[in-house]
């Protein structure tokens, strides 16, 4: 039986649109069944690609579409695929990163739960493009139901001959393995994910060598996000030109945004890139405004690891460039909204607690720094802050930022730095008075 999480989506809007595509069938309870998926044209693209296109054509098409990775960094997908060495005798691997654990992000989960075949089809096309015969999907351990759904979809795809030996009589073999993560945030980072997949401790590897050169079992490996790979299927179905009609010049296409926090209508919404953040929060179709009609205090626009935006900054387009221009990042598209009754110290304590807990412990600044930061912020929150603590926090953040193996260190300190910058007086008040500046503290349920 399929577990169906009650997440709000804008599937109706997507179904009515001739462009948006990812959420078209997610409200259809039968979409996880292969018969339904196939009746919507499912696996037709994979068959067409495999029987009529060359791998290089696929890479060229994806390059032309301008698709950028949806996992957070926004690296051009086609370019990444092009890094696979052409002359290596080693096998190549495709790994779908479904370890969705960035706080606030729950978009991949919806795809896996409600449209798993689209992901599998996208993976198959990507695998063919890079010459891979064995692909993996690494699913976050906590997503037990997703693992079941994807596994069931995989069995169906094998049974129907979409995967396995000699797919569609083309002579191309393609196998897929579903792997369950062990519950570590860091395993969403691609090198830690590869370590974990190999059976090692989930700790990030130093780069270079990049996974495209030496990844899984030291073989060329491409790691892509669920949403990215699912999008590949749609690009190959309708073409790069169509894809470019959405979004902006440098950030084409559409993307799912997970809106959470103090909004009236939290949910997953697929919109074109460049869509207004303000509209996403306030439009009744999407966030429908702030809970209790309070004032907005700040927004984390791209998952817990991106810097805060203040209310005067939210009139901005949700695309990679615009977000950078206001000092934050698009990240994984997790819009977390805080209203005026949020104590920023308390909110940051929750964040740093998470990052301290999830730091893998490999490199010194992140391992020791996140623990130290949590201790300082905890004492400020609990009324024991000392003069100089703000400067100390800033200094420690500076000593972590850009000094670690993987981006977890950066992720941990960037929201802190921005929170200290935007609401410094609130921090100071907390230290001086031992309590919150905000009169009534509203906590998440």
């Amino acid at each position, binding site marked *: 039986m399929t577990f169906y999480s009650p997440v709000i989506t804008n599937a109706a809007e997507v179904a009515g649109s001739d462009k948006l595509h990812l959420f078209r069938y997610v409200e259809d309870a039968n979409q996880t069944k292969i018969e339904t998926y196939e009746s919507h044209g499912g696996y037709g693209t994979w068959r067409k690609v495999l029987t009529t296109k060359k791998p290089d054509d696929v890479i060229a098409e994806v390059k032309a579409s301008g698709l950028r990775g949806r996992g957070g960094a926004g690296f051009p997908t086609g370019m990444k695929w092009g890094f696979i060495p052409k002359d290596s005798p080693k096998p190549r691997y495709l790994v779908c990163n479904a370890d969705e654990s960035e706080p606030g992000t729950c978009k991949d989960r919806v795809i896996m739960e409600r449209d798993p075949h689209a992901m599998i089809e996208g993976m198959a096309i990507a695998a063919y493009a890079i010459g891979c015969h064995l692909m993996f999907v690494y699913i976050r351990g906590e997503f037990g139901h997703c693992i079941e759904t994807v596994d069931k979809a995989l069995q169906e795809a094998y049974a129907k001959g979409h995967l396995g030996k000699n797919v569609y009589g083309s002579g191309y073999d393609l196998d897929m393995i579903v792997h369950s993560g062990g519950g*570590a945030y*860091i395993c969403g980072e691609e090198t830690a994910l590869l370590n974990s997949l190999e059976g090692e*401790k*989930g700790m990030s*590897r*130093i780069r*270079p*060598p990049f996974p495209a050169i030496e990844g899984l079992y030291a073989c060329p490996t491409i790691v892509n996000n669920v949403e990215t790979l699912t999008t590949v299927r749609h690009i190959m179905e309708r073409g790069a030109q169509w894809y470019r009609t959405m979004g902006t010049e440098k950030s084409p296409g559409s993307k799912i945004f997970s809106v959470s926090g103090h909004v009236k209508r939290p949910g997953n919404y697929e919109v074109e890139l460049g869509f207004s953040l303000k509209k996403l929060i306030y439009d009744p179709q999407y966030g429908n405004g702030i809970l209790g009609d309070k004032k907005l205090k700040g927004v984390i626009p791209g998952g817990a690891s991106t810097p805060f935006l203040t209310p005067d900054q939210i009139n901005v387009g949700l695309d990679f460039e615009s977000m950078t221009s206001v000092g934050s990042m698009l990240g994984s598209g997790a819009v977390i909204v805080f209203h005026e009754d949020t104590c920023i110290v308390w909110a940051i304590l929750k964040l740093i607690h998470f990052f*301290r*807990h*999830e*730091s*893998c*412990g*490999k*490199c*010194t*600044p992140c*391992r*020791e*720094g*996140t*623990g*130290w930061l949590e*201790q300082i912020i905890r004492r400020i929150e609990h009324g024991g802050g*000392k003069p100089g603590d703000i400067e*100390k926090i800033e200094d420690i953040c500076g*000593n972590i930022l*850009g*000094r*670690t*193996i993987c981006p977890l260190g950066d992720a941990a300190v960037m929201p802190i730095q921005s929170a200290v910058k935007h609401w410094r007086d609130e921090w100071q008040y907390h230290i001086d008075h031992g309590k919150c500046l905000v009169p009534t503290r509203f906590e998440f349920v």
Partner: protein
Amino acid sequence: MSTSTTTQPAVKMVTLTINDQSVTVPKGTTVLQAALGAGIHIPTFCWHPKLKSVGACRICYVEIEKMPKLQVSCATEATDGMVVKTESDIVKRGRKAVLEFILANHPLDCPTCDKGGECDLQNLTFAHGLDDSRFDFLKRRHIVPGVPSTFDDLRIGPEIMLNRNRCILCYKCVRSNKEAFGEYDIGAFERGNAMEINAAPGEQVANPFSGNLVEICPVGALTNSDWRYKIRVWLTQTTPSIDIFNSSGSNILFYKEDHKNRIFRTISRRNDEIDDGWITDVARYGYQLVHSPDRLQKPLMKKGSKQVPVEWEEAVAFVARRLAEIDDTKGCVCIGGLASPTLDLDSLHSFSKFMRKVIGTNNLDFRIDYRSLPEKPDSAFSTLSSQPFTIAEIDTSDVIFVFGSDLVKEHPNEYLRIRKARNFGRPLVYSVNSFNVKSADVADREFIYAPGTEEVFINGLCLAAIEENPGLSGADGLKRKISPADLNSAAKTCGVSAEDLKALARTLINGKKISFIVGDQVSLSRDREVIAAALCNLNRLVGITSRGQMAALARYADSIGAEKLGLIPNPHPDVKRALTDLWGGFPEMAGYHTEGMFSQMLKGELDAMVILGANPVAMYPDHEAVAETFEKLDFLVVADLFETETTAMADVVLPLASWTEFAGRYVNLEGRIQKAERAIKPLYESKPAYAILADIAAAARKPLFSSAREREEEIEKVLACTTVRPWPGDYLDVRPPAIDKDPAYPIMLIIGDDPHHRCYVTEKAASLVKFCSDAYIELSPELAEKFKVEDGDAVRVESKYGKLMAPVKVSRVLEGDVVFLPRNFSVTRANSLVSRKARIDWVRINKVSG
């Protein structure tokens, strides 16, 4: 990426600028290594020259132009035109920040920490750190439950104590254990700042290389219980020495307390050509036997039925007189001698001269545990064992073939080398043996041939090579000389399929650089001549040595030295000529080797033996027969460190000084002459063997050497001779002898060294005894199930020649009907189970009930 070895033959060079200094290094070098090579210091914690870089500690930051962030130099490859600064303000700030992070939770218990004075963290904090900490919280503490100590020390192995509070999580212990040693008994647990190093669940850190983990720990988190709380490092002196328990001769350093005659510990003295800075636990803790209370303190002489302590003069005069008497009455042919191949060159040469010049006999040998010795000097095995072999060549070999060797027990250094070759290159490694061995974990494939079919396997390999490449020269001539002469029956007999043999032959034919190691299963086999002949044929057929190296590796610290000095009855003709020139003569008689001497003794035709540092009664196959043989002697003089079964039968026992107590030179398996300096003065009244022999010779009024200088010059001249014997000019006959097997004894017994022991002396080293204190029967899980035994249950092992009881250890490696028994323990004499006449030692076992 970060290998320090030069693996590519023609390397592209890159030039970069470090601190305004131009540095040119091979492509692939890291910025750190480039800087270190140019004499520019960059601090490190987690970097180790022999491990892959992980960039964990972040102390090695450098600033590189055009790169926005600080880079870790240990994992950044030097490129052309790179401009690096190692001492800019931003780098210094970065370093300080890392030290502050590390020290935040470090207990700073330096006054009670054994690492104090040689601690990387102390030194780097002194050089680069802040003078105060801004960390004002309680430090993280890993409390050991149930231990009311503020030190939180946890024992994780027989010799290793762990203090997790001090640990800075550089992971060098875990990484080296896994990468360099292939062991998994230590690991990192939990994550983030709760991360801790600990022994694997339910395990002890007791692998044969475990001491290295302590040595490379940059702080006092891992300490040896051997050294803890005994002495501060600044109150010690160091002496360079050699590991004499290993034929590679790893370089070591002894630490001795100032003004006292006591060694406190051993650490490695990295020599990249031999040991890469890794030493075995035997090398590390073996020194303790020197300070064992069981050391012989004074000469002993048998008076009546008891051995009583006497003065040196009395003992020496008595030995000289008795040897002269036997010489007068029965002739010098009735005197023989054995010297241990772990003695230094001076002692070995003195022994040779003493036997040949002073006594005039040619009955002498250094091979103390071989079953069968060649009758002819130009035997196939002599050829095989005299071939040159270079340890460092393993690094760059593309095919590594280990034949009949349990490497971890026999040649641990070479095992580590092969591991390294695997980590940093892509060689094809094959392990071929008659039983499963631990070292096969570095092999691409492990092949098991049927017991006693070494030569059939090699014949099969030759035949497979001919099938793969019929153009190989002399193929027909070879086929006439070997049996079986067709591939399929050879494959059937040795139990390795024809397909596998062909695949192996292909790699041998196609390999560009081959290292072919032949181990104890050949060297100690009764039929080693036949096996060696087969190996000579293989080399002739596919030309291994023209593309690499192939040798039966020497087993003891100075085996090659003994060989080169001619310590066998029939030395290499060049050596014989040199000795004749030096001494103006050479004994006319042919002389007997070890086995020959024993049969002469049994016949009553050899009456006196001089034994230096050897214990044949306990180590030579067939305990009872050897003991009976020795009882027939008229006169036995033994010099040793301890009382042994052999000294118990002696008329005179002389206390021998250990290798730590005098300066000596040793020749390792590569033929490299290395010196072990004197670390301490001889303990008690012990003397080096060369001094004992000089005393006896002087007492006989036939002085050995006029001076130490003369002795050294003689050694120089003899060592200058080559002892490499040429490969045979034609294919040799290889007719496999029949393997006798009695169905009543279905299990193959393997006797060898425990990984933590060597020969019969290391059971006197307290730390090594902690790893393994008594013999055990290591058996495969199948056998354990069959006999319903578990770890610790007693079993009786019986062969046709003897029986003994020992506790069971269920193996993680062995499979099938094979048991292993260590030979290192005086209580359980492994040699009582085996016979010199058998090719395979067959036994049966039963569980001892109750």
